[in-house]
């Protein structure tokens, strides 16, 4: 795709447009929000080819978009955003990914970072001991068939009802932590088997639980509304729908393939799709909702476990610790949303794969306390580097269907990362920087070394320069538990 390098035009800072005349199969323009360096990396790793492939899909509304953490995926690039008409457009599992509703949850607190330091080691051990991580362990709760179906239908609400927690949390979760699902028959037995044994587990790879400190505040009013105080602790949880979502995605890619592949001219079969109104399209959207509910329920369970660990470690209840859910956001999902396109409000199905929703100030779907400043946008950095809290903007609503970046984005393959860290004690290196790291897998730590990812500051710089989010605060890791 290097032949496209000269075809990009920087139409605004960190906003690169590729006209549809660059490739005769493109039905729409493409736009990449990136620094020049990030764009070059995306050209080199062929993720731009994936942005172009999405621009070839039928009925795409606006442009094929890529956020500043763009990197190579399969079918769709990671960091990709695409919208289709809600009534008669298409839906594609490849535009969501296998880890449906993989996402990030952030808790704020009134725990001074200095007070946490003395308890950090014990908290790390307790998290690793109590929360199933990695590949060999299973789940906090093993559910029967009926209980499991209730979680798929009820999401976070079901968890709060049965396992405790604060019902008020729902206001601070995208879609209230529950999307409509009432068709258990459209979920395969295999998916249910995988899911019922994995609810309440972190998983592996880049999934993590981190305790961080607020290092710098850029936007004091927004930080105050979000409950972020300088030098105070926050807790970040990154995980998704585990094997349940993986199986749902695999099942529906097969179904779509059987029904539709022969009729679709695709450059990549991973982009197989169905009409939103078709039986298979409707069923996938229901299954997607079930997997999303599973993921929100999963993060809720992990939150409650971490809160309990902190309460015990610091000998104080959650109220006194000031622990409250700041926000829970999905970054692998497709959702029906209303957006303004060419001056008209239209209903769209927005696919975000490795991209975060970033509603602007005033959006009616936001939690009322946040309407003045916009949706929190949580961008985790790599292990050992800063993470950021940003907020959605009107410009994001205008340019990216209210979407933003979701993370640092990989730069090295896992193999390259392991090779680079072959002779290194990664845990010790981070400990020397004041970051405690806990993991059952030393290989996993090597795969996740900070150098394996883009510099989070570059991603945030591009995001802010393009105007699709505004900085609120930077977070510094204190304790990392890796899956």
């Amino acid at each position, binding site marked *: 795709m290097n032949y496209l390098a000269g075809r990009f035009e920087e139409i605004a800072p960190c906003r690169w447009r590729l006209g549809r005349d660059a490739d005769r199969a493109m039905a729409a323009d493409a736009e990449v929000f990136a620094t020049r360096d990030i764009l070059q990396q995306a050209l080199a790793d062929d993720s731009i080819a994936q942005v172009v492939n999405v621009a070839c899909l039928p009925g795409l509304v606006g442009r094929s978009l890529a956020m500043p953490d763009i990197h190579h*995926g399969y079918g769709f690039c990671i960091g990709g955003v695409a919208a289709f008409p809600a009534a008669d457009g298409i839906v594609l599992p490849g535009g969501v990914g*296998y880890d449906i509703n993989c996402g990030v949850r952030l808790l704020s607190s009134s725990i001074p970072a200095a007070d946490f330091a003395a308890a950090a080691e014990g908290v790390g051990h307790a998290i690793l001991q109590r929360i199933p991580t990695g590949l060999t362990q299973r789940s906090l709760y093993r559910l029967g068939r009926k209980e499991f179906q209730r979680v798929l239908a009820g999401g976070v609400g079901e968890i709060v009802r049965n396992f405790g927690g604060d019902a008020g949390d729902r206001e601070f979760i995208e879609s209230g932590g529950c999307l409509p699902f009432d068709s258990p028959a459209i979920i395969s037995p295999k998916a249910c088997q995988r899911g019922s044994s994995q609810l309440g587990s972190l998983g592996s*790879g880049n999934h993590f639980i981190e305790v961080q400190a607020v290092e710098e505040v850029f936007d004091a009013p927004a930080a105050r509304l979000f409950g972020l105080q300088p030098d105070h602790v926050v807790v970040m949880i990154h995980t998704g729908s585990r*094997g349940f979502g993986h199986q749902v995605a695999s099942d529906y890619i097969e179904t779509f393939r059987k029904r539709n592949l*022969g009729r679709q001219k695709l450059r990549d079969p991973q982009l197989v799709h169905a009409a939103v109104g078709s039986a298979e399209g409707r069923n996938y959207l229901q299954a997607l909702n079930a997997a999303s509910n599973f993921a929100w329920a999963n993060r809720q369970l992990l939150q409650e476990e971490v809160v309990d660990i902190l309460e015990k470690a610091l000998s104080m209840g959650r109220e006194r610790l000031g622990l409250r859910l700041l926000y829970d956001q999905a970054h692998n999902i497709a959702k029906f949303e209303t957006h303004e396109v060419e001056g008209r409000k239209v209903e769209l199905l927005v696919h975000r794969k490795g991209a975060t929703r970033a509603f602007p100030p005033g959006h009616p779907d936001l939690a009322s306390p946040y309407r003045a400043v916009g949706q929190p946008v949580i961008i985790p950095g790599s292990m050992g580097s800063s993470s950021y809290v940003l907020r959605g903007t009107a410009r994001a609503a205008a340019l990216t269907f209210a979407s933003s970046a979701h993370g640092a984005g990989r730069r090295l393959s*896992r193999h390259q990362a392991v090779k680079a860290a072959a002779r290194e004690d990664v845990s010790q290196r981070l400990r020397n920087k004041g970051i405690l790291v806990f993991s059952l897998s030393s290989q996993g730590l090597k795969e996740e070394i900070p150098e394996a990812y883009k510099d989070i500051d570059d991603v945030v710089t591009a995001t802010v320069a393009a105007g699709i989010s505004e900085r609120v605060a930077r977070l510094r890791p204190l304790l990392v538990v890796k899956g």
Partner: protein
Amino acid sequence: MGRYEIFATTADAGIRFQGRDFAELYGNALRGLNLLLFGRNSRPPAGGGSRRFRFRGDGPENVLVNLLSEALFLVYHEGKRVAASEFRHAGRNSVDARLLLAPLTRAPAMEVKSATYHDLRVEQRGGILSAAVVLDI
């Protein structure tokens, strides 16, 4: 390339494999997956029973993804790996195989979410079939 090997993409990993016929191609796909998950020198113990895998699809790519998906389900849900495979039938669009299973004695090196169709094409050159499957990690 040998009969099978692993390769890396930026975010994911993959297996590349070949065979003189479909049985060998599919068998080497399973060996490649084991190489990725368990390394080169791992010898699985016997005693995990067997599983019959029958599938009819729209082409060898469809067969491969479903065969690998079954192997992944066995690893991550049932705690077993495919130690060997016997193909009663292996064709372009269908397969009927007996998968000989072994219990996992150690955790796989990574969590593979799924086998994907990304850029997947079975090609035949000089009587040798070959393919590469990208796995979502």
